[in-house]
């Protein structure tokens, strides 16, 4: 985002809207300004329409800064070429005749993404992505609201890879890895800041305690926070096999979260 200095009146009404506090008052001019390295291109300040003279506007982004928008603005389209293969195949022919922005104008939200994750457990009743005897895990790096840089993500992915975790290939984060076995990311993106990047994987229940313990260790090494998700199929008797494992480590699962209520049909095999 950019603030047109000549239009800014210095009312500073925009400042509280910025999730990463990248908008500050310029001590010399008294006008609002944006610390470019802190801005995650989430677009909140622009969409808020809080600026009377419309001094706030989006800038043209180039790689790797495009990643900031893609991992911060839920309404953002894929702009980075590294994700091009993820654009729905039916649009590939169109992309020969128009660029992504033109395609977005035509197709609207069909080309946008949000959450930067996968469908995880939302359709587990019909897809069976998570089986009995396994636990789904996610580290949502930067959430809630602190933001993070890809170097923090790499710290976590390398730690997870060291205990044998295999990352979910459908998650776009894997496109940013140069070595999926070690969890190493591209060097040119490590300083890019964003609101959240989700690391997804699943492990056998027998490995859950060890992996959670490693996640707890690496939490001490990052300069941000990450939200942790734990997914489990519910047993026939209503028990949740992941809960006692987490509790054995002194981790208390939340009282609220997401429940797939099992209305999808046909039901998938979980074995």
């Amino acid at each position, binding site marked *: 985002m950019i603030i047109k200095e000549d239009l800014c009146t210095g009312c*500073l009404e925009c400042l509280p809207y910025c999730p990463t506090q990248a908008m500050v008052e310029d001590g010399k001019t008294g006008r609002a300004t944006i610390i470019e390295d802190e801005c995650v291109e989430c677009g909140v300040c622009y969409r808020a329409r809080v600026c009377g003279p419309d001094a706030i506007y989006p800038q043209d982004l180039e790689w790797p800064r495009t990643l900031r928008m893609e991992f911060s603005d839920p309404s953002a389209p894929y702009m980075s070429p590294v994700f091009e293969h993820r654009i729905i195949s039916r649009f590939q022919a169109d992309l020969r005749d128009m660029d992504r922005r033109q395609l977005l104008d035509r197709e609207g939200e069909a080309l946008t993404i*949000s959450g930067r*994750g996968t469908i995880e457990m939302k359709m587990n*009743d019909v897809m069976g992505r998570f089986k009995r005897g396994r636990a789904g895990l996610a580290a949502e790096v930067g959430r809630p609201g602190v933001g993070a840089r890809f170097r923090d993500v790499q710290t976590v992915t390398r730690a997870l890879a060291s205990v044998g975790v295999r990352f979910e290939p459908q998650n776009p984060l894997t496109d940013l890895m140069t070595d999926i076995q070690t969890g190493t990311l591209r060097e040119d993106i490590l300083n890019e800041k964003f609101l959240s990047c989700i690391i997804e994987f699943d492990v056998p229940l027998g490995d859950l305690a060890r992996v959670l313990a490693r996640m707890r260790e690496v939490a001490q090494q990052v300069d941000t926070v*990450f939200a942790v998700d734990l997914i489990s199929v519910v047993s026939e008797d209503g028990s949740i096999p992941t809960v006692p494992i987490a509790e054995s480590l002194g981790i*208390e699962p939340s009282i609220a*979260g997401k*429940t*797939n209520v099992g209305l999808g049909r046909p039901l998938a095999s979980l074995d």
Partner: protein
Amino acid sequence: MERTVTHSNHRQGTRENLKNDWVMLSLPYRGPPVIMEKVEKYNEICRRHHPINSDRPRGWYIWVFDDRDKMEAALKELAEAELGLSVVVSGLFDEVAECCRRIGTRVHTVNHSLGFWGRTEKLPPREILEITTMCGHALVAPSLVWHFAERIRREHVSVAAACQEMRKMCICDIFNHVRAEELMGQLVNAIQEGRLAPLQPSRGGAGHPRNLMTNLSGEGAAP
């Protein structure tokens, strides 16, 4: 690639104040006409039970209910309709499980939050987090909550108006403004009574940006 959302799993709160916060999502939301007919039926059923978020067209349909009975009534009707769509409810686990038992279905898969790990000192206080996490994409800034708390206190801006403005930041419109009003009222009271101190400046997350203004002039201490 599917357009997906993972943003209702970390709504912070107490058992008491989460009782008016239920988010319902159905998937798939896109597909051939036979699927879209089911999606429309899902939406019709949910609309009948008075969700509190807007009915504007979105890529997917997520409905927010401020009352468990409304959520359960919608869920019961969805089960009876046998649409075959996956339905996910975010809210208190035991209450959702109890709703399922009453309507004759069974909880299939759960996604627990294990909380926030790492530099948690960068997070705002619990009272602020309970409001901001209702936009799971973190588009409602802690500084905005603080800003409106101050405006409510000093400028007599209404709590409802403040919460509607914060709600606008949440693109997916799952920011429960009804619950936010309750929490915002409690927050303002906590500040008035001195139980909650003004936020400290922190580049990482929680501070009020006005506290950072001197950074550029070089006159103030760096946060």
